[in-house]
């Protein structure tokens, strides 16, 4: 093991590998990060088109609700774009740990925005369908949709936090040696929070979509529905929070 670490530290050109990994991680972040937001916004627009066919008189409301929903569903894609810019344009010192941290940051944000993007799109799509069924309910449905999408973006926010910590990890002194454990822990922190955010993002999106649907059917229950949605969404997010905690432990407690 010591031989391996020595060989890695002396015989590998870490400075060029750092540059290579920052470009690779930037591409990974934005490439994977585009999936969720794209699918979600498309689902949202598709439901809005169906609703317009059902209720042509409400076209203005539907287009407005669709655009607001899509703008929030794009949040996770914007996070991925920010992390990609940071990876590409910030200076990074060359070391083995930085390679792990950069790859981890790219993976975290790329995978982490997948579930949230699709989930926020589901919420927006169900809201558009509800407004199409019952245009009177547009106020409470839009409110429920905004809250639901805010809830849905939490896993992507957790991924953003971990990715930003990993990108700026070079400022922590411990990243400037050559230690295999720290390299792998930084990489696996990114994997942990990234993969862990897919399911909670999708699940919370289903919760929010169901709530929008229910509010559209019976607008007088909007308050109760919002409360149930927040409680259920928080429980379905708890697994994402577990992976966030584990990623924190991997970053800060592995020495």
């Amino acid at each position, binding site marked *: 093991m010591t031989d391996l670490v020595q060989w890695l530290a002396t015989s590998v050109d870490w400075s060029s590998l750092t540059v290579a990994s920052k470009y690779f991680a930037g591409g990974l972040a934005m490439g994977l990060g585009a999936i969720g937001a794209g699918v979600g916004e498309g689902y949202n627009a598709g439901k809005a088109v169906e609703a317009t066919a059902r209720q042509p008189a409400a076209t203005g409301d539907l287009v407005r609700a669709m655009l607001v929903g899509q703008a*929030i569903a794009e949040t996770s894609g914007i996070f991925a774009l920010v992390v990609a810019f940071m990876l590409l*344009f910030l200076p990074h010192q060359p070391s083995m740990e930085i390679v792990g941290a950069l790859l981890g940051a790219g993976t975290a944000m790329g995978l982490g925005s997948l579930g949230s993007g699709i989930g926020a799109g589901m919420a927006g799509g169900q809201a558009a369908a509800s407004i199409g069924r019952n245009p009177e309910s547009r106020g409470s449905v839009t*409110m429920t949709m905004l809250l639901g999408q*805010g*809830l849905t973006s939490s896993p992507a926010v957790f991924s953003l936090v971990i990715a930003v910590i990993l990108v700026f990890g070079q400022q922590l002194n411990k990243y400037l040696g050559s230690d295999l454990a720290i390299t792998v822990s930084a990489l696996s922190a990114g994997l942990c929070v990234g993969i862990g955010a897919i399911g909670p993002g999708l699940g919370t999106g289903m919760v929010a979509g169901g709530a929008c649907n229910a509010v559209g059917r019976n607008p007088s229950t909007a*308050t109760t529905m919002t*409360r149930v949605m927040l409680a259920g969404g928080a429980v379905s997010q708890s697994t994402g929070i577990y992976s*966030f905690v584990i990623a924190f432990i991997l970053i800060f407690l592995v020495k």
Partner: protein
Amino acid sequence: MDIIPGAPIKVIGLPFEGYNAATLYNTWLVMAALFFLAWLAVRSLSAVPGRVQVAAEGLTEFFEDICNNTLGEEHGRKYLPFIATLFLFVLFSNVIGSLPNFLRWAGWPGFYCPTQDLNTPLGLALIVVCVVHISAIRVKGFRGWLWSFYEPSFPGDRFVTKLVAVASFSGLLLLSYVFLRMYILAFLGMGWGGRIVWGGVVGGFFANTIVVMAHARRIGRVPNVAMAPLNVVGELGKAISHPFRLFGNIFGGFVILTVVSHLIWQIGLPPFLNLFFGLFIGLVHAFVFAMLALAYTAVQISE
């Protein structure tokens, strides 16, 4: 390109001491603007309202409707100032960064969103957490607040409740017996600070169990012990995701604006990017921030 704000300015040089000049000046500016607008709105109130009064009344009624619908008539009016102020402060903090920045001299750092400094959203979210839990304690009482972490609970007769109480107490005692030697050795080995903290943690567990079991016997329900850690983690997750959502969106918009404007030599596109990221995203996320604060309050104070 200047993506990362400068290091905090230190006055004395203590750890964690110091301030970020850009955040501080712009926060003062936001507060001054809000004071000025409030003064403008109430300067000459009349039965036939002027333009400013109509706008202020419309905003107040909008938020009063939302608060009354979410919290009910008896609580809604009480929380209206908090929620509306939160919205207005975050909104102004989000859009102030879109103002043109040609006056940058003599230490004035330029217009800069206070919310793109993580400290501002963290402070606001800390206020929200305190307000939510203190109002939960005021509305439901301390025992009711503690009990809410053991929801959803089951109905049970006195025998079952007593059984659960005995079981959880013997579990705690068994755990402390198993860890007793380790715990005493560690306790003796640490300084007074550690003794106070760990004594408080273990004592808190026992006190919590006593209070919850007494409450369970009083209301005749069985606490859901398995849900307690999940509820605590859920509250923590709310407290973490609430500030970071605002910060991520505003900071993200700022980074995109800076990088894209730099890449196209400030030609053409920046006003439209400001329109989208500054005004639209800023408005939507100020609303989402205030509404999530309202919804967290509603979840805690209405059972």
